């Protein structure tokens, strides 16, 4: 069994083509046989090749005639309903692959925006994002918030009333609305967020709305753009975020 990907085109090398034909014809016959056995159905195959004047068939002459007769007994419409030739079959394959591509692309997009969201939660700025990204990001945040609210409700209902809480150090800051910066290094206890760990530039930026004017610099000079909108993002956008 070859591990190399075979190009889906006529094999120009004569000996290679003949060898391939021999192998694949054998394999095809095997598959026909297996299908018939495993599913208990009637089937036949007729193969003409440039190498022999007589066709090769499965199961045998008698079997082929039987299936062909059965086939011809069916109304024309039934015969043609699921009939395909190369052109129509390949078109079907293209359509299916296209669907899968769309789906995969969507999934990847969601994963990408999720990464962006987490990056933003830990302090990366929003200024390099394009309009489409912001839209998608906003949508994703909403989805997540919905889930979070729901989960919080669940937990509150099922959990016993909590013991008098030790005052979390960040509590006052949460209520005044400062961005609760999540840190990448997980603190030992997991709950204390030291305000001093917040980069000063970020706090300044947050507290100075007037500075936001600078952020309208989509497409400026050498700023790195997240270009999710084109299809060639095999190069991971993460290059923009992982210095």
């Amino acid at each position, binding site marked *: 069994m070859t591990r190399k990907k075979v190009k889906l085109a006529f094999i120009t090398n004569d000996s290679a083509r003949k060898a391939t034909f021999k192998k694949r014809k054998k394999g095809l016959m095997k598959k026909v046989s297996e299908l018939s056995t495993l599913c208990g159905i009637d089937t036949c195959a007729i193969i003409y090749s440039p190498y022999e004047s007589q066709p090769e068939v499965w199961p045998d002459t008698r079997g082929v005639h039987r299936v062909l007769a059965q086939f011809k007994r069916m109304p024309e419409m039934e015969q043609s309903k699921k009939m395909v030739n190369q052109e129509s079959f390949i078109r079907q394959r*293209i359509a299916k692959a296209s669907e899968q591509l769309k789906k995969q692309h969507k999934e990847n997009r969601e994963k990408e925006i999720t990464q962006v969201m987490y990056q933003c939660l830990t302090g990366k700025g929003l200024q390099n994002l394009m309009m489409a990204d912001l839209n998608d990001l906003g949508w994703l945040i909403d989805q997540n918030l919905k889930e979070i609210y729901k989960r919080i409700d669940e937990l509150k209902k099922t959990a016993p009333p909590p013991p008098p809480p030790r005052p979390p150090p960040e509590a006052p800051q949460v209520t005044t609305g400062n961005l609760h910066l999540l840190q990448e290094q997980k603190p030992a206890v997991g709950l204390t967020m030291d305000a001093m760990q917040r980069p000063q530039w970020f706090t300044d930026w947050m507290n100075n709305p007037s500075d936001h004017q600078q952020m309208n610099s989509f497409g400026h000079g050498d700023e790195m753009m997240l270009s999710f909108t084109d299809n060639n993002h095999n190069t991971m956008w993460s290059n923009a975020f992982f210095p």
Partner: protein
Amino acid sequence: MTRKSRGRQKIEMTRMSKESNLLVTFSKRRSGLFKKASELCTLCSAEIAIIVFSPGKKVFSFGHPCVESIVNRYLMKNSTPSSSTLQLMEAHRNASVRELNMQLTNMLSQLEAEKQCGEELSKIRKASQGTCWWEAPINEIGLQELEQLKAAMEELKKNVANEDGEAHWGGVKLFAGCSWGVEF
């Protein structure tokens, strides 16, 4: 090792016992069979017809150049030399098949690339879940941390809204025209 599917496992060559499995197997294998036949035609210029009756008595058939011509050729048993018109038609057909195969190949490699991309993204996410508790699935996060995450998210939401509002594209409604969101 438990597997989701039976692929790459040895399977006994007798009629399948479970009806539901049989139907699925039929569907998949029939499709795969036609694919193999199509490839044989493309790679080696073979001319093939395959006729398959389904468990539900419907009939599927594949034929190149077409089922009818192969069946007739087989039943007639005489090799009629094809007229020049027929040859021309066949040449046309083969040209468009070549074209389609190229399209298909292109689409399949794009698909492969996207899948790779997806795997990379999943790897990254998994890697950071070790150090970042907030990246875990929401169902796995504890209540207190969840409250923190909630606050941070709400803050981020405000920032995004501000960012949107100040963008050059004046008048664009927030979260409208999301490229894929609504389709989830």
